[in-house]
């Protein structure tokens, strides 16, 4: 019989580890969702290759460079940085100046920065929340809507993102002020 004490202990340990991973992620992100500061990030058109994903829409943000003091650019490569997030005069989020550590009480995102941006005293940052999951039957239509509203003619897509302790969680993606899922459904019902 193998169900001796060590085996039960191993079972308990693996049960705890398996439950621990999702629990940790849920707690961490729920905290951001409930108490994080809300920012609206302007969206940019996506690379069509990335867009073809099916169940979620791939997002791209207008801003992907964060300003930084020119002197520190010399040896810049492959770093993790705390980037302050501020609300600009237009009501949308913008990335603040990277200067070492974020100040207390200031909203910031911990982002990976692979290399300096060309022709500017700024560094490239990778925004990690770059996908928004939708039900599989509306995701392809949402992808189309997203593309229309991030093009040159019309640019009124934004994501509302909660930010806290370096983590950002997408609440919703809006097209002209309406949640993208509602826009897709309205179009669908108009057609019928």
């Amino acid at each position, binding site marked *: 019989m193998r169900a001796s004490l060590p085996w039960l202990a191993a*079972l308990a340990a693996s049960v705890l580890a398996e439950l621990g*991973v999702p629990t940790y*992620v849920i707690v961490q*992100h729920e905290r951001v969702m409930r108490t994080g500061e809300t920012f609206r990030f302007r969206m940019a058109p996506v690379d069509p290759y990335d867009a073809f994903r099916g169940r979620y829409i791939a997002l791209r943000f207008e801003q992907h460079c964060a300003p930084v003091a020119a002197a520190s650019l010399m040896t810049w490569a492959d770093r993790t940085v705390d980037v302050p997030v501020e609300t600009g005069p237009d009501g949308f989020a913008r990335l603040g100046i990277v200067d070492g550590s974020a100040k207390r009480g200031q909203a910031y995102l911990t982002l990976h920065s692979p290399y300096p941006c060309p022709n500017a005293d700024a560094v490239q940052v990778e925004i*990690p929340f770059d996908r*928004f999951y939708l039900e599989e039957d509306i995701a392809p239509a949402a992808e189309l809507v997203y593309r229309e509203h991030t093009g040159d003619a019309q640019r009124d897509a934004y994501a509302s993102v909660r930010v806290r302790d370096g983590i950002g969680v997408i609440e919703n993606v809006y097209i002209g002020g309406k949640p993208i899922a509602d826009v897709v459904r309205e179009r669908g019902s108009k057609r019928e």
Partner: protein
Amino acid sequence: MDRAHVRWLYSELPSLVRSGILTDDAAERLHRHYGEQEEARRKRWTLLLFGILGGALIGAGIILLIAHNWDELSRGARAVLSFAPLLVGQALGAFVLLRKVESAAWREGVGAYWALAIGASIALVAQTYNLAGDFGRFMLTWTLLGLLVVYLMQACLPALLYLAGITVWTVHAWETRHEPAWFWFLAALLAPYLWGLVRRDRYQPRVALAGWVLAACVSIATGLILDRSASGLWRAGYGLSFTVMYTVGAVWFDDAPTFWKRPLQTAGGLGILVVALILTFEDFWRDATVVSGEQVTAAGTLVIWLTLPVAGLCAGWLLMRRGVGWQAGFGGFAIAVALGQLIARASVGAAMALFNAYLLVLGVMTLWAGVSRARLGMANVGMAIIALLIVTRFFDSELSFVVRGLGFIAVGSAFLIANVALTRRQRTEARS
């Protein structure tokens, strides 16, 4: 007892009865004994197969249901849902451990489901919070948690899923320019389980299955790990891994009745043939003289290239000691690779010639071993090696169609004659 052995025993029974060594009754009893065993074995296998299939299908089905991404569900409901498949898996796992630990079908089926449920639960949480996350980290978390299932359930299918998972992780690490060499560490974590399987019965189907998957994963990972290192190191990597694979297979699994139960030897041998064959082309030597890519330190490179001849000599010695000296040619592949690298710096043509000669010697040795042992299969493998070499050279070179045509006819005739001769010899030996 293996099925092939049972079949052999059945074929022997009539002559044993004729010559008075066994009574009719005893032969009948032997027949019944193994016959029944066969029957029970088949039943056990059917059960096992359906257990695995059921567990894996349900696990995959749950992943697909989750992938639909139900819009109506609140975050709270999703949180509960993401734990549900996992909790079911854990409850089943506990049940198996307490009540059904002797049943392989239960362990395999529940193990497969449980391992998949871990991934489903992490994926659902990621979907709820729109985490693009890091695919590499997701795979790593999933596979490492799944490894616990392998050991708890002592089940083979979760182990195969683990191997596949760490290979997918390695591919991702390679794509994103992280460190794919961690593959070796992750693979080593499975070693105690595999060792346990081998120790219990190295000819059980589980070992063969794990061997095939392991051979495939190691071959993929070797290429990826060495891709970014000093140029030409891929030759050293494959030279080493295929030689080790072949030798381990040939030395420790040489009683295996069928070729599918000799995964390491078969995969290693095929790998050696393929790599040796491509090393007869100039393109694959170009990087021998040009230095590019991220460099390994000079000392590191030296260690790697010195390992090859040592491994080759060890392989040759082990094979000779097992009385399969004719296979030493396969073990010597590592030496040939090291030698090739050395002379390629002076002349690429000479290195290509070396591998032409190597394949020829390998083919002739295998053919000779097959003929002298009257083993048709082995002789054919030897001839196939020679034929492959000749065919490749014919397409490669600028000989006229007439010469090529005559060459093909000569090789084809040699095949036929050798086969007829060997079959006749086998028949006369069987009669005598």
